[in-house]
């Protein structure tokens, strides 16, 4: 009876970012008919890249977190490589040189060896030595696969062990900047995941940037028979009672699939689901669920290596006050804190051709969104200068060596990722199960709850295994978990 030429897939994946691509690889590996739909002309989503004035720029995270050296068998990176059948070398990861958390009058250095940070804490906060060790052991013990609901306030829980409020703020600063969708506080579960990924594991970057990883994922996905459609924005997901039936693209194309996995975000995905008339309040209820935290990034290209100008750190998290105010600012940009990244300062065998300094600060989406085109252009220039001036205290005055700049704002992020409010880390409430009100619609990526490049890929893998591949039912998983936990026979 089917006479149309409408393609039918086992699974349609919305979004060709890290999570969608990783999920796609899992499905294609197990011979599922899978299609990834990407609204934009390029892949990557929140972690992407672009070319401007003959130069390559990265967007998204400054570094890959969760770095562990080759040969490591435990941790998210090792598990991810096994799931994607990848070799460690495929990621082309090069470890950081060393980073700093800089607060007024005190700074803590850290690198990919946890003892560096432990020694710094002991030196700067001698009274906190034991508490810090206890905290680290609690974080190691935290099981993110079995205790997903550890939703208690991280500030409250961590302050049991860290008594000095300044150290508490300093430890939270990088963890929040690199992954908190919640203002001011985090869930303890999220705190633990971030603490491990940054302090216990570490930072790395491929010499050519994140594009190397993305290109590898796409190549693998296509080799396995997966289909990737660019410029294929999803307009809506058609539903019938409790099921998604079709995906309708912006150009009117309709696609059919047994299941849909969306990496577009929770609110964003719910908005795609065509609501029956009379259900309109549901759409209104979604607005308060959207994330509020967005960022501005000022990118400077230099005609010198940053270390020759006095900046030898990989990443500097700075804060100008004793307390760290992680929330949507009233002004367009919050100059009180920021993150400075020098992509040059990783242990590459050969240096990057040009110096680059990326400065990221909290920003207010509404302010940027309300500007006229002229105001927006002027504001970008003005805030670029202010951010560079603020950062000069920590990385020196590189302004005279700047040969090219670019600035992206919450509205840029909104435009290229589709995230409501340009909320980089998505909605504050995560949906660890990945399930929705529709039986065959699932979510992965930022709003499922894992962040960072490795975390995003892991999210795609976990949701594909659990909801889209038969081996991943609760009974299967329980049996396999039991086997993996057996001491010996």
């Amino acid at each position, binding site marked *: 009876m089917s006479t149309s030429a409408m393609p039918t897939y086992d699974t349609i994946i919305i979004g060709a970012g890290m999570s969608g691509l990783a999920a796609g690889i899992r499905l294609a590996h197990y011979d599922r008919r899978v299609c990834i739909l990407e609204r934009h002309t390029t892949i990557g989503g929140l972690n992407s890249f672009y070319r401007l004035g003959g130069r390559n720029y990265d967007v998204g995270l400054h570094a890959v977190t969760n770095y562990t050296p080759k040969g490591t068998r435990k941790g998210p990176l090792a598990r991810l*490589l*096994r799931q994607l059948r990848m*070799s460690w070398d495929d990621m082309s990861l090069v470890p950081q040189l060393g980073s700093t958390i800089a607060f007024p009058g005190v700074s803590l250095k850290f690198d990919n060896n946890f003892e560096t940070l432990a020694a710094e804490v002991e030196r700067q906060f001698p009274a906190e030595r034991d508490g810090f060790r206890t905290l680290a052991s609690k974080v190691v013990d935290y099981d993110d696969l079995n205790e997903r609901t550890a939703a208690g306030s991280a500030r409250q829980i961590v302050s049991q062990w860290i008594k000095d409020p300044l150290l508490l703020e300093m430890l939270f600063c990088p963890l929040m900047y690199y992954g908190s969708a919640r203002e001011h506080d985090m869930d303890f579960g999220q705190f633990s995941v971030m603490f491990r990924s940054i302090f216990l594991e570490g930072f790395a970057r491929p010499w050519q940037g994140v594009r190397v990883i993305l290109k590898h994922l796409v190549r693998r996905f296509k080799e396995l028979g997966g289909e990737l459609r660019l410029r294929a924005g999803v307009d809506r997901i058609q539903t019938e009672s409790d099921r998604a039936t079709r995906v309708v693209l912006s150009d009117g194309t309709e696609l059919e699939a047994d299941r849909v996995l969306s990496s577009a975000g929770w609110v964003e995905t719910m908005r795609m689901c065509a609501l029956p008339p009379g259900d309109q309040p549901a759409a209104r209820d979604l607005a308060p669920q959207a994330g509020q935290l967005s960022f501005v990034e000022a990118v400077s290209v230099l005609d010198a290596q940053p270390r020759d100008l006095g900046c030898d750190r990989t990443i500097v998290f700075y804060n100008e006050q004793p307390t760290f105010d992680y929330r949507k600012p009233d002004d367009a940009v919050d100059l009180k804190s920021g993150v400075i990244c020098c992509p040059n300062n990783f242990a590459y065998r050969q240096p990057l051709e040009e110096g680059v300094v990326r400065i990221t600060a909290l920003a207010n989406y509404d302010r940027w969104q309300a500007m006229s085109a002229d105001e927006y252009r002027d504001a970008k220039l003005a805030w670029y200068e202010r951010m560079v001036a603020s950062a000069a205290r920590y990385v020196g005055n590189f302004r005279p060596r700047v040969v090219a700049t670019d600035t992206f704002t919450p509205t840029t992020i909104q435009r290229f990722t589709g995230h409501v409010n340009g909320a980089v880390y998505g909605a504050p409430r995560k949906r660890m199960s990945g399930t929705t009100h529709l039986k065959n619609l699932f979510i992965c990526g930022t709003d499922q709850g894992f962040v960072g490049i490795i975390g995003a890929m892991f999210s795609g893998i976990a949701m594909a295994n659990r909801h889209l591949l*038969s081996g*991943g039912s609760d009974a299967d998983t*329980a049996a396999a978990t039991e086997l993996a936990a057996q001491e010996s026979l």
Partner: protein
Amino acid sequence: MTPGEIKAVILDILEGIAPDEDLSGLKDDVPLREQLELDSMDFLDIVMELRKRYRVQIPEDDYVNLATMNSTVEYLAPLMKDLS
């Protein structure tokens, strides 16, 4: 398939899952979990690879047989003896 061939299949699956591992020193009587730090997702992958490649269905209750190479081959021998 002979037990030797089944072992080669398992090694091939393990090599696919962990391409960076040197499997030449793998001990047949020591749990795979211990030697390779395999987790529950990896054991599910072994089950799924066997299903994908040979249509061998392994019920959850039988996963326990996949602990070591010896126990895996022993368990699979009757299920795979008619495969070529």
